[in-house]
């Protein structure tokens, strides 16, 4: 969309540990406060179905959307929508896990049916885990299973191996026969949860970026301080209680301060991660049939370096706005 100056914006998010602040932000009026400050309005819309929220963003219905680095590359960037990582919120540090029933070694997964949401970060986690023990995806069978049904699925006898994320992981691990054999703590920093926004919209409306970032880090401050009211509200919105929510937060590496986020975004690990991701996507045919190589879509990093096709940069990691927050310039 040829962007222009505008005053009202819509961002969407879906229920996930690291994104619950978005709901609180909107309910508590913090978002409105920051939007008013910049003379704009920002609607924050909850969408239950994660994929649908990304699709909506990709189709141009929203100006921003919370998603993982991997899905950002495959869906909007792969679909030609130039996208910028505005707020790098957290990375999964155990939130995603491979769980075997009655077996305790990752190698035992060979030959099994593995239930997971195909082509999602779970799939990526599995691929990375298999690499680490010298197995490959052809050594097992992947069964596409909706995340909403994962817990019920685990309770059936047919299901012996699952890969999924929280809160489903902690629910499943509560079963006596469930063993976690690998989790995202094994590949720290590779599954990143980000607020992605449309690059052109951001470029034309810097106030939009400022308002979002400002509001976000105000809530981060509350969370870091252990604000019971805020955390309880987030817990309930995600359908659990305070204790349950805190347990989920424990396996999430939240960047409570903008400085941490900036540091992560500018680190040298990030381009490597994106290369893994691009290769994985390419191997599974997700970058589109027209994609000649994993480098088909270019990814730009804060230092100006680009992974992949420089002429087709569609995903940009940009620490500018987080830096402003870190500098207290909002």
């Amino acid at each position: 969309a040829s962007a222009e100056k505008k005053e009202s914006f819509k961002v969407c998010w879906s229920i996930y540990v690291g994104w619950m602040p978005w709901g609180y932000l909107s309910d508590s009026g913090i978002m409105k406060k920051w939007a008013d400050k910049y003379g704009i309005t920002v609607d924050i819309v909850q969408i239950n179905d994660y994929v649908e929220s990304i699709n909506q963003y990709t189709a141009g219905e929203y100006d921003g959307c919370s998603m993982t680095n991997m899905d950002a590359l495959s869906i909007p960037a792969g679909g030609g929508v130039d996208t910028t990582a505005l707020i790098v919120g957290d990375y999964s540090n155990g939130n995603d896990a491979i769980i075997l029933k009655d077996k305790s070694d990752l190698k035992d997964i060979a030959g099994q049916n593995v239930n997971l949401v195909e082509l999602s970060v779970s799939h990526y986690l599995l691929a990375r885990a298999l690499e680490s023990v010298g197995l490959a995806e052809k050594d097992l069978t992947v069964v596409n299973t909706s995340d909403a049904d994962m817990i019920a699925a685990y309770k059936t006898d047919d299901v012996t191996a699952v890969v999924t994320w929280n809160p489903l992981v902690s629910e499943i691990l509560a079963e006596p026969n469930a063993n976690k054999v690998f989790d995202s703590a094994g590949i720290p920093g590779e599954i990143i949860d980000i607020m992605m926004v449309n690059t052109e919209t951001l470029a034309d409306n810097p106030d939009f970026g400022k308002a979002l970032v400002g509001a976000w880090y105000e809530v981060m401050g509350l969370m870091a301080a252990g604000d019971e009211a805020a955390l309880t509200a987030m817990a309930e919105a995600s359908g659990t209680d305070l204790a349950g929510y805190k347990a989920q937060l424990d396996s999430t590496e939240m960047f409570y301060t903008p400085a941490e986020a900036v540091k992560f975004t500018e680190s040298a690990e990030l381009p490597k991660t994106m290369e893994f991701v691009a290769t994985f996507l390419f191997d599974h045919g997700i970058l589109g049939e027209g994609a000649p190589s994993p480098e088909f879509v270019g990814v730009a990093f804060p230092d100006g370096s680009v992974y992949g096709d420089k002429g087709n940069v569609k995903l940009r990691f940009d620490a500018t706005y987080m830096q402003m927050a870190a500098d207290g310039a909002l």
Partner: protein
Amino acid sequence: MRIINRKPSRRLGAFLAMLPFAGLLIAYAVASHYRRLDNPADKLLPSLSDIADAFLRMATQADKRTGDILLWSDTFDSLWRLGTGMGLATLLAVCVGVAIGFIPHIRSGLAPFVAALSLIPPITVLPILFIMFGLGELSKIMLIVVGTAPVMIRSVAQAVMDIPTEMMIKAQTLGASTWQMLTRVVLPQILPALITAIRLGLVPAWIFLISAEAIASTSGLGYRIFLVRRYLAMDVILPYVVWITLLALILDKLLLIFSRRAFPWHHLGGERL
């Protein structure tokens, strides 16, 4: 006397009707009991008293976050969507269905298209619906409309075509204009069929409502079920399912009673299920 010629008395009939419900309840209680022997915290088949507690909680206690009593606000939101969706679908069914049934040229033009539309599983085109109608109330309502209207249109069109030709001829010999035939002969005669179509359409409508609420919503019966499903909170899901079924049953019966009151001439014939 053959069993087919014997009719149960009122009392026996009521007793027989209760049997399968009681059987289901007992089967559930037993299954739940044995599962909880294994694992007292079993979430899949909670005890009946847990279910009752959860239901009571949802039905009487205000949610801390929103201050609403969840069951009622969910019910209200869902019924509003269902009502609006079915209202639109009914309107479409009457306008398009009557046109198809009444006017041969329109029938030739639209009947095959509506037939094809009615066979598209709407959940496969959900992304398109969401893009076309946004993610607000409209898209939920439209999913209901898209899912139910084509079949309802066909029922109404068929009802128009089932009016005996003799009656159309008779109206013409009584001097009716085409418009008068529409308002005095066709519409009144298809109204009972329309009610039947609505009653049949409500079954998929509930499914679409719940599917839509599961994808994009922050309230409603389907949203609640979806939300607690990831924790397998069957103590909330099961009473919600019973509640939905009860609502559906009440709606269905209300429509039937309405039809009986409003169109007594239609209900003079044989027994209906």
